[in-house]
């Protein structure tokens, strides 16, 4: 049975699955074999609270039979069960109806894979022993548990290793293996009355050495919790909004959700037919960067096998590219790009949080969001938030129980500044963002 230590074995399983699918009557097939192992360690208030070991594997296959398409997956990768699974899968596919838009990607798109070493595997991490994880977790916890006013402090270290391999009947072959690690800490404090404000911080990387210092993570979680003490309901007003670099992802995610082929083709996208148009602020330039060494979501090919390349999504406020996979490209009658994002990078500007807050003079600094949603067709959104008032160019009292509401395209047309302080410990690299004239509702 395939183990993650053996990418070749996974490659062999994927190739065998394609052969079996074709032997069972499929014209075309795409198969992926995936295996992963991970350990998650939780320490709460100085005690090892949970140690969780995961070992997972899966095989999935996309079948194209008589113009019909069906995907199937199983966790049983052995020869005989796989053969039976495939025979049943092909039969099931025949029961569907033909969909003329379904096909494997044009094999031309598989070619031209970048010859860059993504360096996504940390051998040291892969061989780290359990005690080291617990020690790291305890070290973070030791800086926060039992401190004045702390009701509860939890630290988590999670890491793992994965391998995946893909093969297709029209010539794709590829695999990748890698490691990931994340550290996080959360703190609950006693406030006036029954309120127990929380603060947290976390980061993720492919190599252990690329994580921020664990002590900093713990200290930052405590500082963020302490900053919430005495929080009150914020005001109802229209003012400047400064968004923490860690909170920027929620807004950018909402902005990009309708940039996918599915949304465009189904008439559920405010980006539809807007390629080339400058709809948001000129200070926004956003790229998809799949080839960054050691970045969280780097890849040489996407989920369909299309060779990955950097892509500008928004340049100086103008829409330059959408996420279009093979299926929706055929439905829309356009060329495919890629089905989804890898590492999203906001082109940095100048200044850190303190400088941007000083410039803003008055407003609201958002540290995190609570609930909320957006409409990808109309762009209307409304999000709950917590943060601080900005008074005379400095961070002031903590506020919560507020919403920010409006239209996404209009909001991003009010983006006036992008900081020079991007956060790089995740799949989105965004600096601090500053918007003017934003509608808040509170007391």
């Amino acid at each position: 049975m395939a183990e993650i230590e053996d990418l070749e074995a996974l490659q062999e399983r994927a190739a065998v699955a394609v052969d079996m699918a074709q032997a069972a009557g499929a014209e075309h097939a795409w198969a992926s074999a995936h295996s992963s192992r991970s350990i998650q360690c939780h320490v709460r208030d100085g005690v090892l609270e949970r140690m969780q070991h995961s070992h997972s594997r899966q095989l999935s296959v996309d079948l194209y039979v008589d113009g019909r398409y069906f995907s199937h997956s199983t966790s049983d990768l052995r020869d005989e069960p796989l053969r039976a699974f495939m025979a049943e899968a092909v039969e099931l596919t025949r029961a569907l109806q033909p969909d003329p838009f379904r096909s494997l990607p044009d094999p031309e798109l598989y070619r031209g894979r970048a010859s860059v070493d993504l360096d996504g595997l940390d051998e040291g991490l892969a061989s780290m022993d359990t005690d080291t994880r617990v020690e790291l977790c305890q070290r973070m916890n030791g800086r926060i548990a039992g401190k004045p006013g702390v009701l509860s402090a939890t630290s988590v270290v999670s890491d793992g290793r994965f391998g995946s391999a893909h093969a297709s009947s029209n010539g794709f072959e590829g695999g990748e293996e890698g490691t990931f690690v994340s550290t996080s800490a959360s703190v609950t404090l006693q406030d006036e009355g029954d309120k127990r404000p929380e603060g947290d911080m976390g980061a993720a990387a492919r190599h252990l050495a690329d994580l921020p210092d664990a002590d900093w993570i713990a200290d930052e979680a405590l500082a963020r919790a302490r900053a919430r003490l005495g929080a009150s309901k914020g005001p109802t007003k229209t003012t400047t909004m400064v968004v923490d670099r860690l909170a920027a992802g929620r807004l950018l995610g909402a902005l990009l959700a309708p940039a996918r082929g599915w949304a465009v083709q189904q008439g559920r996208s405010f980006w539809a037919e807007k390629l080339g148009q400058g709809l948001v602020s000129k200070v926004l330039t956003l790229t998809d960067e799949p080839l960054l060494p050691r970045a969280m979501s780097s890849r040489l090919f996407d989920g369909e096998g299309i060779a990955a390349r950097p892509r500008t999504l928004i340049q100086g406020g103008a829409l330059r590219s959408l996420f279009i996979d093979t299926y929706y490209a055929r439905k829309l009658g356009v060329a495919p790009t890629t089905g989804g994002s890898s590492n999203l990078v906001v082109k940095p500007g100048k200044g850190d949080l303190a400088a941007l807050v000083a410039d803003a003079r008055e407003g609201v600094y958002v540290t995190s969001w609570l609930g909320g949603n957006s409409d990808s067709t109309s762009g209307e959104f409304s999000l709950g938030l917590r943060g601080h008032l900005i008074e005379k160019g400095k961070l002031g009292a903590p506020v919560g129980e507020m919403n920010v509401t409006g239209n996404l395209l209009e909001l991003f047309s009010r983006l006036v500044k992008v900081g020079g302080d991007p956060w790089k410990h995740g799949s989105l690299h965004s600096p601090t963002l500053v918007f003017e004239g934003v509608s808040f509702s509170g007391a």
Partner: protein
Amino acid sequence: MTAGTAMLTAPAFLVGCGSRPARTATVAPAATAAPDNPFLEWFAIDEARLRRVLAELGARGADRGELYFQHTRSNSISMEDGLISSAHAHVDLGVGLRVVVGDQVGYAYTEDLGEEAMIAAARSAAAIAHGGASPAPGAFTAAHLLSKSGGFYRLEVPWSDVAVDRKLPIVRRVAELAKAGDPAIDKVSVSWGDEDERVLIVDLDGRMSLDRRPMTSLYVSVTAARGEDKQSNSSNLAARQGVEWYTEERLAKVAREAVDRTLVLFDARQPPAGELPVVLAAGASGILLHEAIGHGMEADFNRKNTSIYADMIGKVVAPEFVTIVDDGTLPHERGALNVDDEGVPTERTVLVDHGVLASYLHDRISAKHYGLSRSTGSGRRESFRHVPLPRMRCTTMLDGPHTREEIIASVEKGVVAETFTNGQVQIGAGDFTFYIKNGWLIENGKITAPIRDCNIIGNGPDALRRVTMAADDSKLDTGGWTCGKDGQGVPVSQGLPTVLVDRLTVGGTHG
């Protein structure tokens, strides 16, 4: 649930049994029981192997521990533009192994049910413990088995036996109904899901529980166009029901809802910003309970001192007419369970009794922590890959003394919340939100214009105190709600009568 004699036959009897081992029977040796023993058939394991794995799991001592075997067959079908655009079939099979020592948990899982893999996983899980070996069970006892006639969601025809050609006409029909719903409807997409899940839970004491859990869902979304203006919205159905549940009437209703909820958006606006009275329409508005109090009552947050409700049991938290329950025993509801994921029979738990905070939702760890004789049957997990945690099931408020008409008439300026997409809560600070997709303005006691897309934010205990009226029209929502916590999603249901919260912060624009 009724007590009775336990027998391990397939499909076996439903037997409630809170305490072990009185009135429970010993499982016959696997070799002779093979044809009748459902766990053998489902998971291809025998009693001897179970005993060896349990011995390894308890080798370093444990207060408690269990094996959670799961086999799930799930199918999904999508239709777009009149074509079946994708279908997916998945088989998930594996076992999760847990060791509990006090509040500490060691956990591992494997998708390989071979003895070697299970023993290795048992060793990983047991590493958290440092004591002497717990004895492996001498005999297995059937604590909770399946019923031939009972159970909260037994199906005549399980989903595993329903062929795809019975599902396609349902998907096609609901798409046709939605497309024909109005000339403005431009696009229709339908997502179908069905699932047949079987679980077997065996703990270190040898208690064995079985459950077979069906689930199905149908999601209809539409885009309508009027000139350049486009709007989209959706409606959905979900329950532990079988294929016969999808009657023409039910399909027509969900299609109609999707169309109506979309068309109204052409004229809807975001409401004025600020604090307003909020009327929660009966049904899906149960999201208020889920976020404002339900999560805060999950006992893990309380034993860890991180919930705003941690010191409030026995205190008055709402007006006298407010009674809130979390119920796992409502037949065929999405949040129903015969037995929870720790093998404890589920129940109806009163969270707030006539305004007084009555009980947390417990798993076995928190029940022990609080010195209770048993949990509330609230230990749930997403799958064998996850540890069980205290979770909600079907959360509802019982009828109040007012009527919907009285409530609307009492509001001078406010909003009615009717459909929702999502909500969230901060357990410690108590701040919670829910997002209104469709609603209405109330002006001078009358419903006037439609509103849309606004987030509501409030503080849990404050919002409960501000429930000033509740009507006599409590109902459950049939939508497919999934509750997420600690990275795990579990199906839940919710319901509410028409309720007035006299002040919440409404996300809106200022113009």
